[in-house]
């Protein structure tokens, strides 16, 4: 599968939320084995209104409200996948996913291996992720990086409307568990995509902006902050190339290294707490694979090592912001 051609075809305007909903609706229409299960996906319409209206269209069996039982219904998703269904399990937000992490780590990610390849688990788990809405320490996590550590699963972070619209179908076609992280700040994002936008590949990172001076490597909600920073850098005569990882596991080293070999400089932008965030893995790989092409230390712009505070000025200060990205890029190019 590769990115659906959009050039020339008719365009439609929609939000990221609409794009995810369209993808879910299409999946439900295409394959009766597909169903959506999670807290408040039905009557409430979804915590972020993603599934609003789907209950009326597909009924309570396929738009299945669950009790507050994260481990229970994620494990049930694993079992349903083993039983021939194609579940889309919505864990409302990554903040609650610690409660089902055992099922993901010890069952979803291991059963194929522990069974010697006899069973695989075609399960898709969707979660909202990220900070920025003043929801404080327990509701502002960015833990995609943790999931990217787990062999046996794929981890996707759609940052664009095309990916929000197209990654789900590809994920559902995958025979193994796929986790999709949707940044909470993107749901309102509005834009144009091809009316016939369809499945997209989930193997390759994407160059969202071409540039020769430095590679800015990021994913998810941070992509837009990074694009903003790139504009500012352009004003300073610094042409940044932006790599949107798209898939956090497995990482597309080829695209990352190709960009870094060209620009010889890199800054990684990651909303996770800096220590032990995925940004570290990217940096380590660049050093392993491109050390001799590097003209400067690799910069990292991440979240400060603090539980996210409630007040806006402190939350903003804790998270990666365009000025910090600009500063890190300038430091890397010595300007």
């Amino acid at each position, binding site marked *: 599968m590769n990115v659906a051609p959009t050039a020339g075809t008719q365009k439609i305007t929609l939000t990221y939320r609409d794009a995810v909903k369209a993808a879910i609706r299409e999946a439900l229409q295409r394959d009766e084995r597909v169903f959506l299960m999670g*807290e*408040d996906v*039905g*009557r*409430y*319409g979804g*915590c972020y*209104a993603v599934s*609003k209206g789907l209950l009326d269209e597909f009924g309570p069996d396929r738009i299945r*409200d*669950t*009790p*507050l*039982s*994260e*481990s*229970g219904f994620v494990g049930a998703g694993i079992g349903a996948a083993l039983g021939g269904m194609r579940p889309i399990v919505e864990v409302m937000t990554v*903040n*609650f996913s610690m*409660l089902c992490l055992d099922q993901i780590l010890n069952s979803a990610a291991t059963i194929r291996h522990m069974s010697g390849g006899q069973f695989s688990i075609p399960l898709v788990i969707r979660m909202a992720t990220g900070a920025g*809405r*003043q*929801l*404080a*320490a*327990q*509701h502002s996590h960015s833990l995609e990086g943790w999931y990217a550590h787990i062999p046996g699963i794929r981890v996707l972070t759609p940052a664009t409307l095309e990916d929000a619209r197209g990654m789900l179908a590809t994920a559902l076609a995958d025979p193994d568990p796929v986790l999709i992280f949707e940044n909470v700040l993107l749901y309102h994002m509005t834009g144009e995509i091809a009316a016939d936008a369809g499945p997209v590949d989930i193997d390759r990172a994407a160059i969202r902006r071409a540039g020769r001076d430095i590679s800015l490597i990021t994913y998810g909600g941070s992509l837009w902050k990074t694009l903003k920073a790139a504009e500012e850098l352009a004003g300073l005569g610094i042409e940044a190339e932006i790599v949107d990882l798209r898939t956090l596991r497995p990482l597309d080293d080829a695209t990352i290294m190709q960009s870094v070999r060209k620009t010889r400089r890199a800054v990684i932008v990651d909303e996770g707490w800096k220590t032990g965030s995925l940004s570290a893995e990217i940096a380590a790989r660049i050093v392993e694979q491109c050390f001799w092409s590097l003209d400067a230390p690799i910069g990292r712009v991440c979240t*400060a*090592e*603090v*539980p996210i*505070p*409630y*007040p*806006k*000025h*402190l939350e903003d*200060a*804790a998270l990666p912001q365009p000025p910090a990205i600009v500063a890190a890029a300038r430091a890397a190019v010595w300007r």
Partner: protein
Amino acid sequence: MTAREDKPHLTRPHVLHLLREMLRIRRFEERSAELYQQEKIRGFLHLYIGEEAVAVGVMQALGADDAIVATYREHGQALARGVSMNGVMAEMYGKQEGSSRGRGGSMHIFDAKTRFYGGNAIVGGGLPIAVGLALADKMQRRPRVTACFFGEGAAAEGEFHESMNLAALWRLPVLFVCENNLYAMGTALAISESETDIHLKAQSYRVASEAVDGMDVVAVEAAARRAVAAIHAGAGPFFLECRTYRFRAHSMFDAQLYRSKAEIEAWKQRCPIARLTAWAKASSLIHDDDIAAIEREIAAEVQASVDFSEAGTWEPVAELCRDVTTPREVR
């Protein structure tokens, strides 16, 4: 408020106290909702309006040494417990004069003075902590109770099960207060529980339980006093189900597609404040001018908390990483 009596004494002062406490919560939250519209308060705001009798009734049975563990819907418990209104309002403003220096916001009210342990926004997350607080009391032979508030939705979480069993197994002084307001966000009780008679669940842990009309503050107080007495008698934990209803949306983002206006209206007829007022007036324990006086005082208190918060200060950004771990020096 005296903790050690087993029955509520419906004297005029006590009735006025109950009424005042419920009204403080109601007016405080009505103002909070306005302030949310004005974007003075941000993030999630979960209102307790309609459920005031539960927090106020239960607090009557607790003493100063007892502890409280609550949820993200905890303004009511905080105010009824005696956390200063200024501190709670300033917390929601995010000012450093807030009860948690503004770090927590509406969902994370903490107050050491009143042994108010939050303010936990992970559904079910507070229950094991309450068990631990009670374990500490038991191991240190302190005759204290820990009251743990949670919604009926939390009863589906594994942590509910583990906590009930631990508290019962170790005969710990925990008062589990289940605020059954019939909905978990948009999920009705019957859609989340195979056994909708929540308090019956306590039986499978051999925990004594009772279900009470959560719209009747006197009934809640009486039940809570019985429960606390049983706990002090060494019977181990007690499970109190308070049947109540949330008049407002789950949070400020909720379109309430899942319930009817009629249902809401029917429950509003059972408003705990109106109910106590009517009864107290009928039995001429209180009079209109009492209510007017209380309303005046509360209006002043609420306004003062807004002024206090407006006048409050933003913590300097340089302080961003404080209170993550204890600075080595101060140890």
